[in-house]
Structure formats: C-alpha cells, structure tokens
C-alpha cells in the first residue's frame, strides 16, 4: 500500500501539485486514519492533505481518478499487491521476473507462465502482471511521448515475451488452433500494455512536457507566433501575470519603519506622564505604480502589443491605475475596451478602430499630447511599445521629451533587436535620448523582465 501511495505522490507531482515530504507524511497519516476501503473518503483525504489551492485540487482529483482507474482488480486483490511489491527488488531484471514466475511450476503442456495466464483468461492476474512489470520497467520515469514504444517493449519483456514467442513457435507446429488463440490473446495484451503506458505518460509526464513546451514558448518571438499557439501564449502570459502579482502584491510593512514621530509618541503616552511606553513611527508613504501604456498596433508590432496589454491589464492587484492607448496612424484610448471585453474581442475591436494603418509616431504623439497629457503625473510610468519606425514622417521627439519630463519614468520597449535600431526609418536613437530605459522586448521572457522591472521600481 505504501508503495502505491508513493507512486501516487510521484504522479501528483507529475500533475503539477507540489508534494513536499512533510505533506506526504501528513497524507500517509491521514490515509492510515481513514483506511483504503472507501475510495471517496480516500480521495477526500488525499485532496485535503496534498492540494493547497482550488487549481491543485482539480488537478489532483483528475490525477487520482486516472491513477486508480488503472488496475481495478488491484484494489480487491491484496495478493496482487504483494507481487507488485516483490517485483520492486532493485536487482529486478526482465529475465529474473519471468524466471521467478516460471519457477512457480511448469504446466503439463510445457507452456510458459505468461502463455498460461493468457490462455486461462485470468484478467486479474494479467492486470497484476502488467502492473508489476511496469514497476520493473520503472514506468514512472517516463517523460516524453516519444518514449512510449520503448516502455511498451520493456514491459512486455519483463512479462516474459521471449518465452511466449518460443511457446508460440512450438505451438504453431503442434497445435495450430491453440496457437491462433494465443496470438489473439497476445495482441490484446499488447493493447493493454500500450494503454498502460499511455496512462503512465499522462500521469507522470504531464508537468515535464508542459515545462518543455512553456520553455520553448517563452523564448519564441512574439511577433511571429503561430495562430494555434496564440491561446497557449495567452495562458502563459496569464501565468506570468500571476507570478508578478504574487511577487509584488503582498501588503508591505516596510513603510512602517521610519523615524520616530515625536509628536504622536508624546501625545499617545500622555497618560503615563510622558514616559514613552508606546512609540509611534513616521510612516513612509509608498505608492503603487501608475502606468500609461502607449502601444503601436500597426502590422508587425500588433501581436506583441496584444500580449503586452493583456499582461498589463491582468496586474490589477499590483498596479493602481493603468491607462492604455493604441495607435498606428492616430491614437485612441483603449483602457475601457480592454477592461470590459475578453482579450480576443478587445483586440479585434482595437484593430478595427486603429489597426492596420501604417504607423505615424509623430501624429500619434500629437494626439496624445492634445487629449491625454493630463493623465501623466509625477508618479506615472509611461511605457511605449513600438518599433519606432515612423515611415520617414516627422517623429516629433519634442513631444516625447515633454512626456518624459512630466512622468516618473519613460520606458520604451522595442520588439526589434538592438542591431536594427537606427537603420532604415527607425527613429529609435532620437527617441532613446528622452527615455529612462530602452529595452528589447521580443519574447515572453523579455516581456516579463521588462514589466517586473517597472513594477519593482515602485517597491
């Protein structure tokens, strides 16, 4: 039983639930209390002790169902368990497993144990044998879907496939009818093993595969992302937003530290004749970030702006106030659209209003100065996202200077690589003079770093 629970913990980790040793001990104690007879109670107990959030509960619930849906007979057959544990010996090799089983007594017809098992249609013992063989083949180490074949054959070997083949060869000559039945049974066995392996993959390898995919996605250039990956990228951006929120939204007590507030201390201790028993401290005022985001939504930059806006607008807890503006040839405010609609709809609406034009940074900045300059306060961080390619029109860098003067910081995020800045119609060097920071921002990872830095300056 303990072996099974340990395997379940490993599967839980595979499903992305963090199971620490202490938690597994708690789970063991809980299981010892409630026992194994009632599966619903067992499920509740494990969910209570292992999962620490609603998401984890869902993941773990699925994992539990998958894990225990596996070998139904194992539940009501304790001896199957024993054989399972026996096969966990470290020096377990395929040959020794089949040898030990073969040692249990040769059948009169001289068939191997696997062949006998298959012929007798004993489904319980077949399931148990598959389970023990997958233990011997350490199925829980499976990580990638490409390993399916190798694990299937390992399991079959561990079950004594070689012996079965010999039996088959022998039978084909002596008893063709029986051989035919055996062959059919073998096919069924192969299928069962394949299912077991797929399930093992789903159980143990989910997190690994996800990590790999996310890692690739994080470093993929946002602008050239494929359509089918957009949804995945959105999920990733949401993850990033959650991480940033967790890091920066904690109520911070640091503001309580400061100098002694003499006046308030004296007043508070008046009752004790001015002996300062209770101290009062001056509080440091700390403000939360106010962000004004100005995003280019023309052609190549649009996709990056999309993800950027999604990220900025999912940071409610961290950021006090976000106002977003989008432009290509002229500029409009899009905060409301982004607040009210789903990301997909919002982006479609923004694109229909200002998208698809050729970008004109000069006139867009004029628009901004005319209508929204009042949005800037000395606490505001202005983030401009764009490639600064103004199609050889007047860049109006003077407006950017005024924007920079009125705000706390001006950050420019450019999806293009540094090498391209200043070549062709790129006005980046002229704008860069007025920016506090200019950084490249082409992948999700760079996006996360950029936003994280911006928020961190307020900490």
């Amino acid at each position, binding site marked *: 039983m303990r072996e099974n629970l340990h395997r379940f913990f490993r599967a839980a980790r595979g499903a992305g639930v963090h199971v620490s040793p202490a938690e597994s001990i708690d789970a063991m104690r809980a299981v010892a*209390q409630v026992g194994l007879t009632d599966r619903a109670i067992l499920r*509740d107990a494990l*969910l*209570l002790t292992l999962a620490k959030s609603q998401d984890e*509960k869902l993941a773990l619930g699925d994992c539990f169902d998958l894990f225990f849906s596996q070998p139904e007979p194992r539940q009501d057959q304790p001896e199957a368990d024993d054989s399972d544990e026996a096969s966990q010996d470290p020096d377990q090799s395929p040959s020794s497993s089949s040898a030990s089983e073969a040692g249990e007594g040769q059948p009169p017809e001289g068939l191997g144990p696997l062949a006998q098992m298959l012929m007798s249609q004993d489904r319980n013992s077949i399931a148990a044998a598959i389970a023990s063989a997958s233990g011997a083949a350490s199925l829980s180490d499976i990580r990638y879907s490409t390993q399916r074949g190798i694990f299937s054959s390992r399991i079959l070997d561990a079950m004594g496939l070689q012996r079965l083949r010999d039996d088959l060869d022998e039978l084909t000559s002596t008893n063709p009818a029986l051989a035919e039945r055996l062959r059919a049974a073998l096919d069924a066995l192969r299928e069962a093993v394949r299912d077991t392996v797929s399930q093992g993959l789903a159980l143990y390898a989910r997190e690994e595969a996800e990590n790999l995919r996310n890692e690739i996605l994080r470093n993929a250039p946002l602008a050239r992302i494929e359509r089918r990956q957009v949804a995945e990228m959105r999920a990733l951006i949401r993850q990033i937003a959650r991480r940033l929120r967790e890091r920066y939204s*904690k109520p911070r007590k640091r503001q309580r530290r400061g100098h002694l507030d003499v006046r308030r201390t004296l007043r508070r201790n008046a*009752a004790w004749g001015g002996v300062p028993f209770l101290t009062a401290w001056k509080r440091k005022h700390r403000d939360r970030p106010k962000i004004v985001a100005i995003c280019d939504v023309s052609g190549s930059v649009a996709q990056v702006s999309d993800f950027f806006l999604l990220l900025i607008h999912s940071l409610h807890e961290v950021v006090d106030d976000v106002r977003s503006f989008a432009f290509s040839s002229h500029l409009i405010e899009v905060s409301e659209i982004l607040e009210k609609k789903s990301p997909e709809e919002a982006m479609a609406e923004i694109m229909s209003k200002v998208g698809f034009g050729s970008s004109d940074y000069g006139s867009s900045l004029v628009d901004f100065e005319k209508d929204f300059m009042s949005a800037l306060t000395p606490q505001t961080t202005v983030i401009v996202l764009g490639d600064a390619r103004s199609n050889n029109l007047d860049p109006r860098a003077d407006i950017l200077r005024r924007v920079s003067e009125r705000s706390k910081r001006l950050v420019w995020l450019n999806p293009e690589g540094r090498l391209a800045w200043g070549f062709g119609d790129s006005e980046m060097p002229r704008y860069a003079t007025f920016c506090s920071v200019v950084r490249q921002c082409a992948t999700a990872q760079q996006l996360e770093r950029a936003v994280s830095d911006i928020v961190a300056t307020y900490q």
Partner: protein
Amino acid sequence: MAEQKASTSIEAVESGLAAQGYIASRQIATAVYLSQQIEKPILVEGPAGVGKTELAKAIAAWRGMKMIRLQCYEGLDEAKALYEWKYAKQLLYTQILKDKLGEVLGGAQTLHAALEQLHDFGDVFFSKEFVEPRPLLQALEQPGGCVLLIDEIDKSDAEFESLLLEILSDFQVTIPELGTVSAITPPTVILTSNSERDLGDALKRRCLHLHIGFPEQRLEERIVESRVPNISQTLRRQMVGFIHEIRSLDLKKLPSVSETIDWARVLVLLQAAELDTEIVKDTLNVLLKYEADIEAAHPQITTFIAKAARSNVFG
C-alpha cells in the same frame, strides 16, 4: 476494523454538525474528522457566505467547547493577537512600590548588591501577572481545549502569517521574557480565507486545505430545511433551483448560502406559496447586492422560474 470506524466516525461528525444546524458535505465532515485525528488546523477557502465561519461555530457548539475568534485585518500584530504587557499596571505597581523599593534596597551596602537585588525584583514585573493574553494565547490556555477561529487570514499581513506558524504546527508560542507557552489541550484551529491574496506556502503546508464552494442543489435544500424549517417543500425546491440558475449567470457577486437562507426567510415572511415573477422581482435585492447584477438578472427571471419548476418534476 479501523477503516470501518473511519467511515462511521465521519458520519458521526456529519450528524453531530447537523444537530447544530450545520449541514456538512462529505468533504467537510472528512476534513473535520481528520483534523481531529492528526491534529492539524483546517484552512477553509471559498466565496463569501458559504458558511466558513459558521463551520467553526458549529464545531464548537457540537463539542461543547468555547470558541475564541480572532478577526484578522491589515495591520494586525502580535500585541493584538498574541499577548501584550499591561504597561499601565506595571507602571502603577512601580509607583505604589516605590517606597517599598527604598526599603528593599536600603539594606544593600554597595551599589553592586543593590543592583543584584534589583535584578530579582525586575523579574516580578515581567511575569505572567502582567501579561494580557490576546486570542491566540487565550486559546492555548484553555484547559478543556477550544475552537480557535482565525477569520479572514488573507486580510492580514504576510508577517502575521509567520507569527502563526509556531502555533499552527506545535500549538505553542514563545514570549521572550517568559519562555515557551504550550497548549494545555491542543485547540481545534480553523482558518478562513476569501482568497484575497495567496497565502504563503509555509502556512498552507501546515493545514488541511478545505475548499467550500456553492453546495449542490440537494445539499442546499437540506441546509434551507434545517435553517428555515417552516418553508414548504415545493417552494424550497423552486427557490433553490432558481438560485442555482442565477449562479450560472455572469454576475459580480453570486448569491451564496447565506443569501439563500435570507431569501427563504423573506419568502416565508411574505407567505409566498410558490415562486412567481412578481414576488421574485420584489425580493431580488435580497439575493443580489449590486444594481448591475439585478439588472442583468431581471430579463431572465421568468425563464429561470420555469426552469426551476421543470427540474422539480424530474428531481
């Protein structure tokens, strides 16, 4: 054998809580049972009004224990949660004992001897006498055990969480001047959270994590039955069905169990025999607390009533 006992004990928890008017689902009963057996606090999460606080009250009433409640808020610190020195009393005593002090120290020949005597004396002022126990310390000092409810832990600061860790895992607190105070009987600890912020892993690790969501229809009917006994069965079914339909809407604040109970009371008070559009429209403000939500629900009322009535036929 032990396993047999477990499922019957869980049922015992369920019926025990039910006797106090708290209809618990299986998960809740399992959590309460386990927290007793392996002496771990329960961290209850879920939307507002699903009976998180009520659970602690029900456990206390069921086991006949005292309930000590600590309401968390931003800025809560150990002086308000754990213990505080009674400064005024200390000061008063030093004033009263001033003369006595002269007598005691008068006997001393040297400054060193006086200091020595003063040392023995100083400890008097930092003794249990002068400690004002706050909820957490009170909970540890209950001889018969108690139910300690730490309400809305997510509203407190991250530092306060760390303060709780010692209590949650070992049922003890350390007061620098006095040493470690261990619980006489480990209290049953319930923490509640509305998930306003994510709690630290260290805290979560020490607790059983219980999520109470909106109950299933059957369960909610039983809850209404136990809380508002004089409501007719048809009306109960209809109203619970209606609320379940409402919860499928995209609202700012979904009506939870406490709203269901309030609404049931209102309907009984208005002597409604069954749900109709008029009465729902008039009493919708009991269920929904935002004007925008009421507006969103308004056009659906008739459909929902019809649906709720239809599900009755099959349910």
